[in-house]
């Protein structure tokens, strides 16, 4: 578990450092997959079924808001429908407009859900969506999931009806529209799946918001079971020819994905749950605090030992000096590293230790006018070490323990190194 938590922290760090690149790349990939899937499944317009166009559109989506993927996806699908038949495009446009006007305006920020749902339906893994949306989004996102499912079935209907539509002449325009609209409204599988997904989203959302232990795990399992039950009942009532095996496998996959989401989003340690009760003038408070699982990141400090500077320092100390104490930059780095090791893993404790050492360093500097070679060379940690060493550097002819700054360790206080460097101004020293 510790390894996983460390990996999570590392991933978080990578994301926070390079989200400027990661987000556009992710958007680009998503848009590319969506447009490519659309082209491979419909592909009636030869002009759009071109890798160059797909790449340009995906590239545009990478720096536009997420809604652009939905918009361009809708434009792509409408153009393919138009290439098939004007009437089909008209029906598609009407369906999109109705969705936008009636449903999508309540949850405009769910573009990702609307874009991903048809894609996952096409990839035959749609059961991940309601569980993930229930865990991560608001209950109103059920509407977006429903819209996504409706879009998938519309596109599927167009693909399936394409041979029939092609055989129909232009004089049968009304017949084409009637066929599409009636097929869409009579599609019981679509209605059952929309209902099942909406109920699942609400169930998962309600359970994961409860203050019981392992609420997220209970929510995802309960949601999966509700989903399966509603789908099976719908299959019994409407005879939608549901493949039970794929439903069960898809649901298992949904639980696995949900566990991954839980690990990244809601990783808590229920064994350390604390329940406290207190009151103020107006309320009684019953508080349950569940600590998050977290492992502090360990970062390595790379030291560079400048041999030239060391030689200069040696020259400064005179002939009889055995001191090539890490002077200037080098010295401060060595000191920081050693201190960090002694401070432990916690960033907070590292800071505390630094503060104490800074306070004591001043004293050493004042009292160390003569320079205690032995002390400075051996300690070499904290600010104290730096200043003592520096004062010793100016005291010629003294012997002591040589500090080459080779100490290796892990540092959590890189920022402090800068402070020490700033403080360590050679002009300050006599």
């Amino acid at each position: 578990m510790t390894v996983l938590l460390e990996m999570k922290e590392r991933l978080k760090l990578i994301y926070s450092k390079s989200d400027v690149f990661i987000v556009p790349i992710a958007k680009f990939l998503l848009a590319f997959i969506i447009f490519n899937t659309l082209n491979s499944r419909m592909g009636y317009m030869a002009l759009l079924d071109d890798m160059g166009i797909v790449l340009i559109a995906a590239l545009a989506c990478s720096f536009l808001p997420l809604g652009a993927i939905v918009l361009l996806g809708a434009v792509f699908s409408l153009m393919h429908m138009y290439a098939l038949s004007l009437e089909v495009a008209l029906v598609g446009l009407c369906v999109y407009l109705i969705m936008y006007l009636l449903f999508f305006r309540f949850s405009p920020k769910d573009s990702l859900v609307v874009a991903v749902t048809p894609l996952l339906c096409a990839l035959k893994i749609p059961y991940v969506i309601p569980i993930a949306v229930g865990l991560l989004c608001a209950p109103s996102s059920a509407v977006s999931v429903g819209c996504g499912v409706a879009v998938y079935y519309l596109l599927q209907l167009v693909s399936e009806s394409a041979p029939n539509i092609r055989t129909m002449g232009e004089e049968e325009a009304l017949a084409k529209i009637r066929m599409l609209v009636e097929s869409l409204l009579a599609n019981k599988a679509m209605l059952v799946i929309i209902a099942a997904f909406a109920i699942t989203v609400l169930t998962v959302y309600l359970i994961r918001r409860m203050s019981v232990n392992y609420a997220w795990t209970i929510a995802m399992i309960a949601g999966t079971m509700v989903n399966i039950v509603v789908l099976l009942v719908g299959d019994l009532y409407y005879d939608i020819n549901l493949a039970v095996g794929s439903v069960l496998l898809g649901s298992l996959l949904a639980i696995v994905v949900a566990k991954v989401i839980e690990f990244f989003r809601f990783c808590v340690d229920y064994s350390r749950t604390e329940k406290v009760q207190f009151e103020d003038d107006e309320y009684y408070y019953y508080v349950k605090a569940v600590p998050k699982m977290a492992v502090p990141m360990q970062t390595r400090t790379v030291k560079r030992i400048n041999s030239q500077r060391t030689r200069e320092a040696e020259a400064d100390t005179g002939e009889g000096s055995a001191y090539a104490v890490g002077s200037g930059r080098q010295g401060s780095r060595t000191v920081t590293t050693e201190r960090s090791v002694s401070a432990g893993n916690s960033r907070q404790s590292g800071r505390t230790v630094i503060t104490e050492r800074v306070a004591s360093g001043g004293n050493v500097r004042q009292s160390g006018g003569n320079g205690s070679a032995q002390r400075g060379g051996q300690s070499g940690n904290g600010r104290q070490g730096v200043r003592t060493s520096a004062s010793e550097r100016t005291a010629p002819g003294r012997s002591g323990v040589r500090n080459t700054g080779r100490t290796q360790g892990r540092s959590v206080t890189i920022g402090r190194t800068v402070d020490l460097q700033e403080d360590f101004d050679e002009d300050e020293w006599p």
Partner: protein
Amino acid sequence: MLSEERIILMTRMASYEQGEGRKNVKIGNYFRSDYITVQVLKAVVCAIVAFLIMFGLYVLCNYEELMKKLYNIDELLVLAKDVLTYFCVMVGGYGVLTYIICTWKYVSAKKSLKCYYHNLKKLGSMYNER
């Protein structure tokens, strides 16, 4: 001297202002009745447009049948009554739904803004304590 508590508070508030807070501040600028009225009006317009689209599709699907009904005044009246009923149910129902959702949105936005202003006051008092 840097105050860690103050920095945490400021960071949280800045994050709120840039995300959810922006939307809530917009909502908070309205009186409750004004906000809900505007939203319900928008919803009614959207519902009317959506109804017209649906009716258009219905007309296209049942064009021949409707043409026959046009020459029979009784059937036409029945059709008009049905259409009007559906129109009222849809637009009215959508308006009521929007009213409920917008009331809830307004209340939660106000609650959130109250918390934000409380934090703002707390931040001000932290600066005064210096």
